[in-house]
């Protein structure tokens, strides 16, 4: 593995920012987020993780799918696919693992072209975590703070700088084309990177997938959900939650006759945006019936989807939770996924 210094890494980032859309962790009014940066000086180092995951880079909060132009005799549909090559720097291993799980859905046949195009145009440059945050539990979920397996390039921060590992050929190309300066590491030991010791207060039990549905009728869901506010924070910060709503809406130009468009056309857009099963209206169907009108039903659904339905449907081979801990930090009423896991583990042993 090669070694690079902080200065060399910064100048490589500057070079990337000049030529591509570079996304990196940045403090936006004090809030750490993955955002476009123009210069390496904007990058935020030394903190646990951004508030939102990297899924925004592939599955933005709002996206225009089509523009629809209604003319006098025709309807035109214009697709809008993103063409811009982008690099995401500073990706946490938990986030990259989340992207891999989203791939299972979005790239399964027939495939989602919007996601797939962004995915193909993006290079992921990972940064290993020196230590785990107080709410992190990736090691309980089959991941690790220095897991390189879903990255294109992986960086390991050590005292002398960063160890650089090209994981894929796409990653190698990025290193070569923008000339990251580096040298052989003096000890030459790849194991140097595992000098990180991930001490953790607890490892949380991960129940078997079948244990979750067995607790469908458990009164526990209603009890925990009593304090739930039915907001969408947990789903929106989560690296693997992926529900969305699609709607056709008129563009303002369509409604303005004050500036006539000449050929009587009007314009609409088809957009999609994030949605969440925790919202009260999520499962309401035409006619008004709502099979998940109660908070306990919605809370149960979210956890079962995370630990049973999604893994089963897409043969993920693991729970669909990467252990990033964002939901624990962000939930306003401290509904804690690790407590839920512990409860399921306990009752399933009886």
């Amino acid at each position: 593995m090669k070694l690079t210094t902080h200065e060399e890494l910064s100048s490589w980032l500057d070079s990337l920012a000049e030529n591509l859309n570079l996304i990196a962790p940045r403090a936006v009014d004090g809030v750490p987020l993955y955002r476009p940066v123009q210069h390496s000086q904007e990058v935020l180092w030394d903190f646990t993780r951004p508030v939102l995951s990297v899924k925004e880079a592939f599955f933005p909060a709002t996206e225009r799918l089509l523009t629809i132009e209604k003319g006098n005799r025709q309807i035109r549909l214009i697709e809008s696919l993103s063409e811009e090559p982008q690099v995401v720097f500073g990706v946490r291993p938990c986030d990259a693992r989340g992207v891999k799980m989203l791939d299972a859905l979005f790239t399964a046949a027939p495939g989602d072209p919007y996601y797939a195009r962004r995915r193909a145009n993006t290079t992921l440059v990972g940064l290993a975590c020196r230590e785990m945050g107080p709410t992190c539990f990736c090691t309980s979920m089959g991941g690790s703070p220095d897991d390189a397996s879903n990255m294109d390039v992986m960086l390991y921060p050590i005292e002398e700088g960063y160890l650089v590992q090209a994981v894929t050929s796409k990653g190698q190309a990025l290193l070569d084309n923008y000339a990251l300066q580096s040298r052989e590491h003096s000890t030459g030991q790849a194991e140097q990177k595992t000098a990180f010791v991930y001490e953790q207060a607890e490892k949380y039990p991960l129940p078997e997938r079948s244990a979750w549905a067995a607790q469908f009728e458990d009164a526990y869901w209603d009890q925990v959900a009593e304090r739930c506010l039915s907001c969408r924070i947990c789903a929106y910060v989560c690296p693997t939650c992926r529900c969305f709503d699609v709607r056709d809406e008129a563009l303002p130009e369509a409604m303005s006759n004050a500036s006539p468009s000449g050929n009587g056309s009007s314009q609409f857009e088809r957009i999609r945006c994030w949605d969440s099963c925790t919202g009260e209206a999520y499962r309401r169907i035409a006619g008004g019936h709502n099979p998940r009108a109660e908070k306990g039903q919605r809370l149960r659904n979210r956890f079962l989807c995370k630990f049973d339905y999604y893994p089963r449907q897409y043969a993920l081979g693991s729970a669909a939770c990467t252990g990033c801990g964002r939901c624990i930090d962000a939930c306003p009423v401290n509904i804690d996924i690790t407590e839920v896991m512990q409860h399921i583990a306990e009752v399933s042993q009886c």
Partner: protein
Amino acid sequence: MTYTQEIQNKARELLGGGQVEVVIGYEVGPRGRTRPAFVYDPQDVERLVWNQACTHNLTTYLNDHLKPKHPEKKQGANSEARRVAVVVKACDSRAINVLLAENRFERQQLHVIGVACEGILEDAGQAGNERSAHQLVTNDPPQYQARCRHCNERTPLVYDTLIGKPESHLGTGPNPARPDAYQRLQTMTPAERAEFWLSQFDRCIRCYACRQACPMCDCPTCLYERDDSLWVGMGIGLNEKRAFHLGRAFHLAGRCVGCNECERVCPMDIPISLLNRRLAQEVEAAFGHRAGIAPVPAPFVTVLSNPGG
């Protein structure tokens, strides 16, 4: 006796005597975070605590818990009406007045355990000594929340049981190290103000936590979440987000009691309480009305008594 013990004793008495179905209070979770608690059994009252992280406005749960079992009957005719006990601070108690004024439930359905609060800390809602993802740019020790610094009445305005000594304001004044934008906004040009708000709303993800945390936001279908996008589009874009926040602030004019939970729960640290503060000031100047001081409705639902005045 500590406040915690007093609350536990009261809860035990109310639940044991069957006076209420549930006590809504606070507990501490395994990670050391204080959170809302719903205690149904007198054996469980030891879960209840009081500390300086009791930030949540528990009155937001009242509408659901006090829903009449037979909505088609008039309120007073509901002899099976539920009764609950709720632990409130002074700011939360003002919300009870607003909800009473709006006929959400009847006063006798509530046993209010009011606490003469000594201030809530800024990192309330986060784990014990642990830092949230946001606290990366400052190493200040936690201070009192901004609302506590401006608090004028520590004693709840509505209570059946009072815990703590009635005292006047805590108000230690604004923290000079953390000036908020309120005064600054008043002196900006319109274009600068517009840019300020757009840059704040850019971060918003329409998670609706602000709305859900608010006791007064309880419309069965929110105007800004309609399936037909009548007033605002569904997208998480700038126009939509701004319309949602401004519209919600307007709907709360004369009703928002300044508990500030909306701002506390925001995962993106958007200072939305600035909007509510501006409108509270306007409503007080124009109508002499302060939300929650008495169970009277906001001025918009009444007619002018002095036309042109």
